[in-house]
């Protein structure tokens, strides 16, 4: 908000307060930061940021009070400014009347009449000051109301009195469907939750927000009815929001206005209008009251002041002085002050609010600084938070870069690509939608991290990267939640993607530089190793839209807990996302990982020599490695230490549907050195069993 130094000078000696630099420092100390200052003729304009709790400081009088309190310079006596203006003729009471039908929503409504004005322009002072803070100049009547708004922070409205049917005002609820054309010439359709000011026939103003067009002051207006009132903040806010209106008036009423400001504001406005446009002010002020209001009192204890501040140098003398400077009245009662809160300080209610007021004047920078003593054990971390950090460390060590992607997606696109995965993970059968999205084409929350990650991969490749390896840790959102447990909508995920060259070395043939399924699988096994041994994982072919069938898998624990999906992103999906080459991606359901790492215990190992034996055979591709391994292990060969797949060969000379597998068996005993012959016998028996039971061709 813009404030004029000249105008502030009406209320406080700005030179004594330190001039522009001093005021700036004082207001900073008080919590009203001055963003900038600029010269405007002989005046200086201050751009200050007023927090929403301080509607009283949204006018020059209120801001000046802050400057005075913070600097200790007294406020000038400005009582005359708001005193009854010279008046003449019939009294206001005689000429018009006010009826408040909604006393709780309008606790005070004041009005003054200025009659017989001429079509002139505002005084130089008003023109200059409104001009300097950037307010538009309209007519003496409207300018007078705006001037008072920026002076006292009290919004006013001016009616053309002659256009008010019956010459009276009624404050009431709007009727359902009632229409009112407001000053901006837009027809508003009203609801009974809105308050209007009406004449004998119709609504003439949308209370606290904007006046009506039909009864507005024009060049032809001779008799002006000035209105100043207090409106219920919540009602004003709801109406303003519903109608998407935000005015200087609604801004202040929403934040609660000063019940005390009304008479003075009307007096000042009437005098300004009189000075500018002549005519005569009708004697007396109409001051209708709704629900009663009174000055609130509360106490501030020395003990509370010291506990909250941590400063034992503070005392009640200082507190009383500080509060008085801010417009409170404080009375000492033993170890406390009994304080009455001025009506303009709608934000101050309780003791701690008073503590803040005292400390603002004292200056936060003067408070001591120390570290609190610990009374509880610390260093506890949310277990899943630890799991996430560990996964990230493993991934970064494996050469992947962490990304953070926006979680906004289009539901249909997500469903088309990952629907089957979402169904498996029970998240987001129907994703959560945002009611007021930033981008209407991405109004749903992701139910998997994969789309966002694949988009990041695509961006990298488009920028010319030959290969990229990325991961993300974050949350996916789903439907399975219970509305009253917001936390139940989330599922923690870890997603990764490997695309293009992963081993970009000149010594390797091009094919070996690129990621393949076994890179992704090996990476996943390494990631989960702290919690789930690779022997404990079950790999099953996956059928998920975005992945290539036959080159993707679902990973479960032996007990059937779904851990992850991993695989080659399919052609359609790659095309859709602009991914030129092969991309292998996966997503882990972090919540499915056991929180405790698996036990790591020492196991004795043999110091005796091992004997290895390789066995080659042609087999049908239908026999999976898992099945083969299971078969070999189920033979329970004595002293078999390990079994590994040594080689797989699918050359042109192999019959279709067949592959040549070489396995390496390692035998070792912990008790004796094995004989080659006994190993040979075992391997021969195994070869025979493989031949007869699995139909492989040995050799």
């Amino acid at each position, binding site marked *: 908000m813009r404030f004029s130094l000249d105008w502030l000078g009406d209320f406080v000696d700005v030179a004594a307060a330190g001039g522009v630099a001093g005021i700036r420092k004082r207001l900073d100390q008080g*919590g009203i*930061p001055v963003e900038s200052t600029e010269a405007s003729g002989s005046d200086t304009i201050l751009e200050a940021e007023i927090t*929403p709790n301080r509607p009283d400081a949204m006018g020059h009088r209120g801001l000046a009070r802050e400057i005075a309190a913070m600097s200790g310079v007294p406020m000038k006596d400005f009582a005359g400014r708001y005193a009854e203006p010279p008046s003449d003729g019939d009294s206001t009471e005689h000429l018009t009347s006010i009826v408040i039908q909604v006393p709780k929503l309008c606790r005070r409504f004041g009005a003054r009449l200025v009659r017989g004005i001429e079509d002139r322009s505002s005084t130089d002072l008003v023109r200059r000051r409104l001009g300097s803070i950037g307010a538009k100049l309209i007519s003496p009547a409207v300018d007078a109301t705006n001037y008072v708004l920026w002076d006292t922070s009290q919004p006013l409205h001016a009616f053309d009195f002659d256009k008010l049917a019956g010459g009276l005002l009624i404050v009431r609820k709007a009727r359902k469907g009632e229409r009112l054309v407001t000053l901006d010439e837009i027809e508003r359709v009203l609801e009974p939750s809105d308050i209007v000011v009406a004449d004998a026939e119709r609504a003439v103003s949308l209370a606290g927000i904007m006046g009506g067009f039909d009864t507005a002051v024009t060049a032809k207006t001779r008799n002006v009815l000035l209105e100043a009132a207090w409106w219920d903040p919540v009602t004003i*806010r709801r109406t303003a929001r519903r109608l998407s209106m935000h005015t200087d008036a609604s801004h202040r009423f929403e*934040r609660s206005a000063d019940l005390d400001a009304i008479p003075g504001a009307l007096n000042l406005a009437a005098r300004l209008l009189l000075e500018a446009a002549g005519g005569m002010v009708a004697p007396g002020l109409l001051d209708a009251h709704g629900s009663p209001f009174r000055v609130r009192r509360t106490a501030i204890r020395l003990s509370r002041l010291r506990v909250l*501040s*941590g*400063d034992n140098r503070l005392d009640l003398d200082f507190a009383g002085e500080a509060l008085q400077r801010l417009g409170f009245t404080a009375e000492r009662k033993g170890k406390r002050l009994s304080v009455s809160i001025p009506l303009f300080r709608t934000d101050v209610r309780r003791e*701690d*609010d008073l503590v803040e007021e005292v400390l*603002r004047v004292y200056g*936060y*920078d003067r*408070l001591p*600084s*120390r*570290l*609190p003593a610990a009374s*509880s054990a*610390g*260093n506890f*971390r949310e277990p*899943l*938070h630890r799991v996430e*950090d560990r996964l*990230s*460390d493993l*991934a970064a060590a494996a*050469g*992947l*870069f*962490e*990304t*953070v*992607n926006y979680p906004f997606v289009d539901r249909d696109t997500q469903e088309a690509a990952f629907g089957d995965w979402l169904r498996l993970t029970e998240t987001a059968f129907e994703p*959560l*939608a*945002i*009611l*007021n*999205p*930033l981008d209407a084409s991405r109004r749903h*929350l992701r139910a998997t991290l994969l789309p966002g*990650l694949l988009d*990041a991969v695509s*961006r*990298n490749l488009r*920028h010319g990267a030959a290969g990229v*390896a990325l*991961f993300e840790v974050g949350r996916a*959102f789903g439907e399975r939640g219970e*509305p*009253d447990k*917001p*936390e139940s*909508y*989330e599922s923690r995920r870890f997603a990764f993607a490997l695309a293009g060259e*992963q*081993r970009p*070395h000149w010594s390797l043939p091009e094919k070996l530089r690129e990621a393949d399924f076994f890179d992704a699988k090996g990476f996943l096994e390494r990631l989960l190793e702290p919690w789930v041994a690779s022997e404990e994982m079950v790999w099953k072919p996956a059928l998920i839209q975005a992945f290539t069938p036959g080159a993707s898998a679902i990973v479960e624990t032996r007990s059937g807990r779904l851990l992850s999906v991993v695989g080659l992103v399919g052609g359609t999906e790659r095309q859709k996302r602009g991914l030129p080459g092969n991309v292998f991606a996966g997503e882990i359901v972090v919540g499915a990982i056991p929180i405790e790492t698996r036990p790591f215990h020492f196991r004795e190992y043999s110091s005796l020599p091992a004997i290895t034996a390789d066995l080659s055979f042609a087999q049908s591709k239908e026999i999976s490695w898992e099945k083969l391994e299971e078969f070999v292990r189920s033979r329970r060969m004595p002293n078999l230490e390990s079994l590994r797949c040594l080689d797989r060969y699918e050359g042109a000379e192999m019959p279709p549907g067949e592959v040549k597998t070489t396995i390496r068996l390692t035998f070792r005993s912990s008790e004796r050195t094995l004989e080659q012959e006994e190993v040979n016998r075992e391997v021969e028996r195994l070869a025979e069993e493989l031949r007869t039971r699995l139909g492989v061709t040995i050799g």
Partner: protein
Amino acid sequence: MPDNSADDSIARVLAQFREEIDRGVSSRSEFERVKGRYLGREKGLVPRLFAQLKSLPAGERAAFGARANEAKTAIEETIGRLANDIEYREEESRDRAAAVDVTLPGRRVRSGGLHPITIVRRRIEDIFLRMGYSIADGPEVENDFHNFEALNFPPDHPARDTQDTLLLDRKARSPLLLRTHTSPVQIREMRRHGAPLRIIVPGRVYRKDEVDATHSPVFHQVEGFVVDHGISMADLKGTVTAFLEELFGAGTKTRFIPTFFPFVEPGVDVAMSCIFCKGSGCPKCKGSGWIEIMGAGMVHPKVLQGMAIDPEEYTGFAFGLGIDRVALLRFGFPDLRLLFEGDERFLRQFAGEP
């Protein structure tokens, strides 16, 4: 002339051997052939000389034997020397084969890295873990109660305007939304554990902000929250100052000015001396020498009361800062959007950061 013929046989073998050696033995196979021909156990020419002993008259045997032994020693010596030569030459050629262009690129173990936000978050966590804090966590989907009401943002209060909220379309007793700050976790932790509490809450938060260089609808905060007997503004100041010195280096100055947040009273804006100009004023701090870095304050008594904690017995402080902004200040990149683009050229710049 058995003597002569016997003598001759030794001389012949020696001569033949020398001739062959003089012709040169260049490969291991040639060497093995030569070695076999002369020293081979059964058919070797040298053992055959000794076989002649039996057919010699007893008187000549000793002399012949001595000469044969001499010849054998000579041949063995030469063979031994040749073996060394061959070995040496083989080593040499093996070494030659192992030679590489040492200027060619090495096969490096690929290194990845954590996101700058994670790097900063963990640094902040480390600082507070050392100060005895615990790390708490909460959901990103929240309800109005935790995000606003329990934090003293009454319904229809203008303070809500300062946090433009993304609302969710589910019917719930308390409307669902994406949390606009990490403060709802204060409420959850008080409900779970009561007082005393000493936690930080890092996390992702959401606001309805259009994306630009300094705004993002998704960003990250760390909330600090301490409730205990006799906690004061002095404790808040000391904690925040110690933290900022740890994070931005000793000599970082702090300034505390009043402000308004509904869930604290008194409310505090914390500024720190500009890390770019050390407080002398530069474009980054708009000439003020100060950078606003966090919001803070004493926990509002209503917030404590709402969670059944007696504000007469316990007091507390809370503070919150934006991780993204700290990352931006610390790493000196110009635009928040870089954090969310996932460009490896950006991400790899921080990979070495511990």
